[in-house]
C-alpha cells in the first residue's frame, strides 16, 4: 500500500507499558497514587518542546489502555543497525559529530539518554544524523516507572549494570558505538547475561577498548584506525566514569578532525517543508491513526483477557504469573504521510506561503461550528499556515492576530495566540526565572489542598509534574502581586494557561499576569467585597437589560447572584466548565474584552431560561449548584451579540484597570448604594447621542406634561410618571401612543432610554418597564438636566397636542 520513499516516512511510534502500582494504595494525603502512565506523560511534556537538528522531535505521547504509553516522534532514513554497509572513517566522524551534538544538547538540559544504541541513531541518504527516542530514560524517571530494564546490554557501561550512572554513562555508550562502527557489532552471538558479564569483566582491565577489540579478533583493524579516533574511543571507554571525557571535550576533539563538510541540503518546500508538528496534526485530522497502525504492525496485540489473569495475587496486591512485564519492545512503526499528501494534493504550491498583503483565501468551512472547523484538515491547513505567518511578525502583527482570532484560533497554536492577544512580550523567561517560587508561605497549605482538586480529570494537571508547576505559578503570581491574596479559585484561573503552556511555564505566568488586571482587576484584594458586589450588580442589570422577564422572575423569588455567580466571575468560569469548553470561552473573552464575561453570565441564564422560569428558589439554586450541560458555542455567540449591541456605558464598572480619564459626557458613575438598588443600567450622554444619531433608541420622557411641553427631546414620548399605575404590569396601561412607541421599539430592537428630572422616578419607572417585559431599558445618566447642558441642540418645543397622551 505504501510506496517505499524513505522521505515520506516522517514519524514513527513505539509503545511500552508503564508499571502498575501493586494493589490500591494511597498517598500520604489519602488520595490514590498517580498512575505511572500519568507521571510519564507529565514528565514527557518537556520532551515535546525540544527542537534540535540532531534530535528527532517528539510529536506526541499517548496514553493507551492498561497503562500503555505510545511515543510518537520524527524519523528519518534508517537506523545504524539497519544500515548494512560499513562506514568509512570520514562517515564515522560525520556520525560521531552529529551524535555528540545531540548528546551535548541533552546533557546541557539535564537529560541523560542512557539508551543510546545503534537502533536509535538514524541517518538519512544525505548523511544527516538524528537520535530517536532519546527521552525514555528521562520520561520514566530513570526507568523507575516501568517494569523492564532500559538499554541494550552491549551498550551499558559497567556502572550502569551495577545500577547507577548519570550522563557519563552516555559517554561510555558513545565509545562503544564508535568502536562498533569501526570493528563491527560487538558480542553479536552472545545472550544478554554473558554480555553483561563480559562488560563487568572489563573493570580490572587497563585498556577496555583494546581488550574488546582483541576479544573480537579485530585488534589489527583497531590499531590501523587513525590515532585520533583511537584516542577518542579510549577517552570514552574509561572504567571510572569521572575519567571519561565530557561530551563537550569530545565535540572539541571532533572539531579538530579535518573532514569535508557535509554538503548542505536545500530545505524542502511545500508540504514537506512545513513544521513537523503541523504535518502530524493535519495527518491526524485527515484520518491518520497511530494506534491502528501499531495494531496492524503487531506492536499492539490484543491477547484474550484470560491470558492476563494472574496465577496468584498476594495480600499486598502484587501478582504472580499472567501477563508479565517482558522486555522493552524495540520495534517501531513508521508512518507515511502519503495520506495527507493526497488529501492536500490540490493545494497549489503558492498557498504554502501566504502573503500578508494578499487577500487570504476564504474557506467555506468558516460557517461551520468551531468544533467542526477544528477537525477539518484543509481548514486547519490554511489557518495554521496563516497564523504561523502572523505570529512570526508579532508584536507588529498584533491587530491582524486579533482580527483573525475573532474568527477562530487553531488549537495547535492557541497558546501562542493567547499570549499575543494578551500582549505578552519581552524576556519573560528571564523575569520568571528571577521570581522566588520555593520559599514556603502561610498560603501554601491552602494551595496544597486546592491543587489536587483542580481540573484533575485532565491528565496534564493531575500528575505530580502538573501539581508542582501549578504551585510554582501560583506562588510566583502571589509574590509578584503583593497587593493581592490567594482566593480559592485562583488555582482554576491559572489552569487554562498552564494547560496551554505546559512546557512554557514562563509564558503561562506572563499570560496570567496580563489576564488578571484586564479581566479581574482588584478581584483578588484581601477585601474584595465591593468589587464583587459591583460586578454582580452589573451582571444583574445586564440580565434585566437583555432578559427582562427572566430577571423579574428571579427578583420575585429572591434569587440573587451572590448565591451562585461568585465562582463564575471570580474564576472567569474556569471553575465552572471543563477545560475544553473554557478554551473556547476564553478565546472570545480575549478578543472581545472585559465586558463579555458579564454577558456570558446572561447567556447562561438565557440558555436555561425555560427551566428557570418554571422553577422556584430551590430548583433554581439546585440547577446552578449542579450546572447542566451548557452549549458553550451557542452561549458565546449570544453573549457576543448582546455585548456588541449594548451601549458601552451600560456595562461600565468603576473597578477596572481603565486609566483613561472620562469626559463628563461619558460619565455614568453613581454611588455604590445607588447601583445596588437600580434594576436598569445607566447610559452615558455620549452613548445616548450616538443612539439618537443612529435612530436606535426610543426616548421616554417621564417628566410632567407641563415641563415636557416647554421643551423636550426631539422624537421622545412623554409618559408623566405621576400618572402611571405601577401595580399594573402592562404596557397598555400607559395609553395608546406610548404603548405603540414601546412595542415598535421592542420590535426594532431599539434601546429604551428613560429621561427624567430626578433619579428616583427614573428608577421606579425603568423597573416598571422591566416588569412589563420590555428589554433594553436604561436610564439616561444625569437626566434631562444634564442633556440640556451638554447637548441643547437635541431639544425642541413640541407642537401642541402631541404630548403623548
Amino acid at each position, binding site marked *: 500500500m505504501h510506496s517505499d520513499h524513505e522521505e515520506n516516512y516522517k514519524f514513527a511510534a513505539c509503545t511500552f507499558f508503564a508499571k502498575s502500582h501493586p494493589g490500591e494504595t494511597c498517598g500520604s494525603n489519602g488520595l490514590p497514587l498517580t498512575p505511572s502512565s500519568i507521571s510519564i506523560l507529565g514528565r514527557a511534556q518537556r520532551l515535546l518542546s525540544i527542537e534540535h537538528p540532531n534530535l528527532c522531535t517528539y510529536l506526541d505521547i499517548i496514553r493507551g489502555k492498561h497503562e500503555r504509553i505510545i511515543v510518537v516522534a520524527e524519523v528519518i532514513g534508517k537506523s545504524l543497525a539497519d544500515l548494512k554497509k560499513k562506514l568509512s572513517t570520514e562517515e564515522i566522524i560525520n556520525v560521531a559529530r552529529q551524535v555528540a551534538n545531540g548528546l551535548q544538547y541533552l546533557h546541557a538540559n539535564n537529560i541523560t539518554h542512557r539508551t543510546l544504541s545503534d537502533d536509535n541513531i538514524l541517518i538519512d541518504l544525505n548523511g544527516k544524523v538524528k537520535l530517536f527516542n532519546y527521552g525514555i530514560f528521562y520520561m520514566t524517571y530513570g526507568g523507575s516507572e516501568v517494569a523492564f530494564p532500559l538499554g541494550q546490554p552491549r551498550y551499558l557501561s559497567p556502572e550502569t549494570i551495577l545500577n547507577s550512572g548519570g550522563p557519563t554513562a552516555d559517554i561510555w555508550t558513545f565509545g562503544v558505538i564508535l568502536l562498533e562502527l569501526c570493528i563491527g557489532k560487538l558480542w553479536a552471538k552472545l545472550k544478554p547475561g554473558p554480555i553483561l558479564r563480559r562488560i563487568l569483566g572489563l573493570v580490572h582491565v587497563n585498556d577496555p577498548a583494546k581488550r574488546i577489540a582483541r576479544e573480537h579478533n579485530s585488534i589489527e583493524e583497531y590499531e590501523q584506525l587513525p590515532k585520533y579516533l583511537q584516542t577518542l574511543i579510549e577517552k570514552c571507554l574509561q572504567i571510572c566514569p569521572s575519567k571519561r571525557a565530557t561530551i563537550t571535550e569530545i565535540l572539541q576533539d571532533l572539531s579538530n578532525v579535518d573532514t569535508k563538510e557535509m554538503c548542505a541540503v536545500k530545505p524542502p518546500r511545500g508540504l514537506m517543508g512545513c513544521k513537523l508538528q503541523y504535518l502530524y496534526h493535519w495527518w491526524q485530522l485527515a484520518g491518520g491513526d497511530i494506534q491502528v497502525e501499531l495494531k496492524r504492525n503487531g506492536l499492539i496485540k490484543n491477547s484474550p483477557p484470560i491470558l492476563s489473569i494472574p496465577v496468584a495475587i498476594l495480600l499486598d496486591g502484587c501478582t504472580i504469573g499472567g501477563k508479565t512485564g517482558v522486555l522493552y519492545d524495540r520495534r517501531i512503526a513508521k508512518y507515511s504521510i502519503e495520506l495527507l499528501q493526497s488529501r492536500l494534493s490540490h493545494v497549489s504550491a503558492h498557498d504554502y506561503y501566504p502573503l500578508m498583503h494578499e487577500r487570504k483565501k476564504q474557506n467555506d468551512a468558516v460557517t461551520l461550528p468551531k468544533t467542526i472547523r477544528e477537525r477539518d484538515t484543509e481548514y486547519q491547513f490554511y489557518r495554521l499556515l496563516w497564523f504561523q505567518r502572523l505570529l512570526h511578525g508579532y508584536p507588529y502583527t498584533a491587530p491582524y492576530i486579533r482580527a483573525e482570532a475573532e474568527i477562530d484560533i487553531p488549537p495547535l497554536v492557541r497558546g501562542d495566540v493567547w499570549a499575543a492577544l494578551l500582549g505578552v512580550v519581552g524576556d519573560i523567561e528571564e523575569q520568571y526565572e528571577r521570581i522566588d517560587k520555593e520559599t514556603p508561605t502561610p498560603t501554601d497549605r491552602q494551595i496544597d489542598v486546592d491543587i489536587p482538586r483542580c481540573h484533575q480529570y485532565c491528565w496534564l494537571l493531575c500528575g505530580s509534574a502538573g501539581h508542582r508547576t501549578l504551585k510554582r505559578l501560583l506562588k510566583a503570581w502571589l509574590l509578584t502581586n503583593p497587593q493581592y491574596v490567594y482566593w480559592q479559585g485562583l488555582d482554576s484561573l491559572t489552569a487554562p494557561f498552564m494547560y496551554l503552556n505546559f512546557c512554557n511555564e514562563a509564558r503561562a505566568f506572563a499570560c496570567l499576569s496580563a489576564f488578571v488586571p484586564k479581566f479581574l482587576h482588584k478581584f483578588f484584594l484581601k477585601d474584595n467585597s465591593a468589587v464583587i458586589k459591583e460586578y454582580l450588580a452589573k451582571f444583574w442589570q445586564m440580565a434585566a437589560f437583555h432578559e427582562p422577564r427572566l430577571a423579574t422572575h428571579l427578583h420575585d423569588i429572591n434569587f440573587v447572584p451572590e448565591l451562585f455567580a461568585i465562582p463564575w466571575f471570580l474564576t472567569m468560569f474556569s471553575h465552572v466548565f471543563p477545560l475544553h469548553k473554557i478554551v473556547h470561552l476564553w478565546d472570545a473573552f480575549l478578543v472581545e474584552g472585559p465586558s463579555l464575561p458579564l454577558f456570558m453570565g446572561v447567556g447562561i441564564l438565557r440558555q436555561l431560561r425555560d427551566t428557570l422560569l418554571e422553577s422556584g428558589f430551590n430548583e433554581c439554586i439546585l440547577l446552578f*449548584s449542579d450546572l447542566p450541560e451548557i452549549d458553550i458555542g451557542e452561549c458565546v455567540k449570544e453573549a457576543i451579540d448582546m455585548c456588541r449591541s449594548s451601549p458601552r456605558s451600560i456595562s461600565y464598572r468603576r473597578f477596572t484597570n481603565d486609566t483613561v480619564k472620562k469626559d463628563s459626557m461619558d460619565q455614568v458613575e453613581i454611588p455604590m448604594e445607588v447601583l445596588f438598588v437600580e434594576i436598569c443600567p445607566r447610559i452615558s450622554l455620549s452613548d445616548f447621542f450616538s443612539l439618537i444619531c443612529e435612530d436606535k433608541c426610543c426616548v421616554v420622557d417621564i417628566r410632567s406634561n407641563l415641563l415636557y411641553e416647554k421643551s423636550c427631546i426631539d422624537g421622545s414620548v412623554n409618559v408623566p410618571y405621576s400618572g402611571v399605575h405601577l401595580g399594573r404590569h402592562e404596557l397598555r396601561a400607559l395609553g395608546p401612543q406610548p404603548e405603540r412607541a414601546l412595542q415598535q421599539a421592542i420590535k426594532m430592537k431599539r434601546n429604551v432610554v428613560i429621561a427624567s428630572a430626578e433619579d428616583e422616578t427614573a428608577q421606579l419607572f425603568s423597573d416598571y418597564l422591566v416588569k412589563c417585559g420590555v428589554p433594553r431599558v436604561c436610564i439616561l445618566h444625569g437626566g434631562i438636566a444634564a442633556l440640556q447642558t451638554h447637548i441643547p441642540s437635541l431639544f425642541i418645543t413640541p407642537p401642541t397636542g402631541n404630548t403623548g397622551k
Partner: protein
Amino acid sequence: MATNRTGAAQRPNGAPQTKVCQFKLVLLGESAVGKSSLVLRFVKGQFHEYQESTIGAAFLTQAIRFDDTTVKFEIWDTAGQERYHSLAPMYYRGAQSAIVVYDITNQDTFGRAKNWVKELQRQASPSIVIALAGNKSDLAAKRMVEFEEAQAYADENGLLFMETSAKTAMNVNDIFLAIANKLPKSEAGAAGAAGGGRRLADGEQPRPSQCCK
C-alpha cells in the same frame, strides 16, 4: 430509612400522609476537610477522590424519612477558606442545624472547627442544632485528633458528635439522621422563625410558621 431526592415531600392527591418538615442545614469547617464530600455522599451516595473545591457555596437538598415524618434538608455547603468567612453568615443565618466538620488527620482543622462552633453559638439562632463531624475516619493510621478529645469537647458544648468517612460512607447518613432526630418536628415554628434573619428562599417555601405540615 427511605431517602428520596424530591419525591418524599410530594403528596399524591393532596392528602398528607406524612408530616413534612423542611430544615436548613449549613456545613462549616476548614477547607478540604470533606464538607462537600459528606454532602455528596449523603445526597447522591457518591464519593469523588478529586472533589472540586467549593467557591462561594453550593446548595443541595435531600429528604429522609422516619416513622411518620419526612425531613427535608436544604443543605448549604460553604467554602472553607478563611477569606470566604464574610459570606458565611449569609448561609448560617436562619439555619436550624449545622454540621461543623474537621479532619481527624489534621489538628489545625479541629481548632478551626471549635472557632466555628463558638461563632455559631454567638451569632446563629439560639436553638440551632450543631453536630461536630470528625471526617476521614478511614485514615485512622494518620489520626492527629483523638476521638476522646473531640467527644469531650462536644459533650461540654452540647454538640452531637460522630466520626465520619465520606469515603467509606461510615456514619454519614447517621449524622444527618441524628440531627433530624434532634430537630423539633411539632408546630415548631421554632425552627424557621428563629434567628430572625432573612430567609434565603422566601418566595417558594412555606412560611416559617408552617414549617411542618
